[in-house]
């Protein structure tokens, strides 16, 4: 039986948006040094400009960005956000401290873009159609005709916060050569993309405080919820087990 270890993330992103970050213009240098000490090797700083500072880690395909309006940590093509979960709260602690924006947060989001490999875009469309996950009404058919491709984008909200969910078929195109050997098993030719953007619960339009520990808890809770959703979607789409799974 497959488990969450077989999930593939095209992208895992943690982003914090804030007000009153203009002090970045004064302190970007000091913040860069603090982050350099925190992140360590193999993160390499890109010289900051007036809009953003950035660290890149090519080995793990991670980027850390910060500026007067937002901070983000992004990792691509990975099986879990464990490393992002380790790094993002620690880095955010320094950004919040140096720029003094820990209490003027306007939005915190954690986004997971999961890919389920399919034979072809047509195979993906057929699976979505047969799964009944996205069903058009007779009124829709009457107005627009029977769709040849389906997807679903919606926003839901409960005590855990807001969740923007998207389901669609994507064609993957490799440019410049074959996929690196360590990613050959992860990058599909065609896939069903499950896009889950979790928003930290807050009152819209008001500042709120965000510290390292609650951010870490939110990232983990969002991933646990995303894993459950992904397993449910996978089952509904009747996707075959990945080749390396043994029963």
């Amino acid at each position: 039986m497959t488990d969450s270890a077989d999930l593939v993330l095209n992208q895992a992103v943690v982003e914090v948006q804030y007000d009153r970050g203009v002090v970045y213009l004064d302190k970007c240098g000091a913040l860069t040094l603090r982050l350099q000490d925190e992140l360590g090797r193999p993160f390499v700083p890109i010289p900051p400009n007036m809009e953003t500072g950035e660290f890149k880690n090519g080995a793990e395909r991670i980027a850390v960005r910060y500026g007067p309006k937002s901070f983000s940590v992004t990792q691509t093509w990975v099986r879990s956000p464990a490393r992002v979960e380790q790094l993002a709260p620690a880095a955010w602690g320094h950004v919040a401290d140096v720029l003094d924006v820990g209490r003027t947060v306007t939005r915190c989001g954690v986004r997971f873009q999961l890919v389920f490999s399919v034979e072809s875009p047509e195979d993906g469309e057929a699976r979505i159609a047969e799964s009944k996950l996205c069903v058009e009404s007779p009124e829709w058919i009457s107005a627009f005709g029977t769709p040849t491709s389906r997807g679903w984008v919606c926003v839901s909200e409960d005590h855990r916060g807001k969740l923007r969910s998207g389901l669609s078929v994507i064609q993957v195109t490799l440019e410049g050569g074959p996929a690196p050997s360590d990613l050959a098993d992860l990058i599909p030719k065609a896939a069903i993309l499950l896009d889950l953007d979790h928003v930290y619960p807050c009152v819209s339009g008001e500042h709120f405080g965000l510290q390292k520990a609650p951010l870490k808890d939110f990232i983990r809770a969002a991933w646990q919820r995303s894993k459950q959703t992904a397993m449910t979607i996978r089952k509904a789409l009747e996707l075959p087990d990945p080749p390396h799974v043994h029963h």
Partner: protein
Amino acid sequence: MSTTDETAIDSIRPQPLQAPTYERASVSGGVSEELQMRRSLTVDAPALSRSVSTEDREAILESLYEERTELTRARRLGTLSPADADYLTDLNRYIDAWEKDEGASSSDVWKRLEAIASSVLSFQVDVERTRK
């Protein structure tokens, strides 16, 4: 008031601040991209290629081991939350993948083995010469 006067006043009147967009999703290109379904994904293969030095690999593993140590200590003390237990599982898998990633270090290990073998052979040759 004439049009010209109105224009002159408008030109010095401060423009309203743009309202903050609280619904903007992470790392998106704008509202239109948000509402659309993704249809294609272009992957820049050369940009994803990597060459990981031994030092980088060791630094990554050191950082991961440090994080894991904190969690395993909490587990031994019985204070590990279910969420952190789940995190530890993912962390272990991530560490396993890096420990098995020998692409960066295998060439270095072989070089060291070869250097040792060369030293041993040189020593043996020297011993034989001395005997003669």
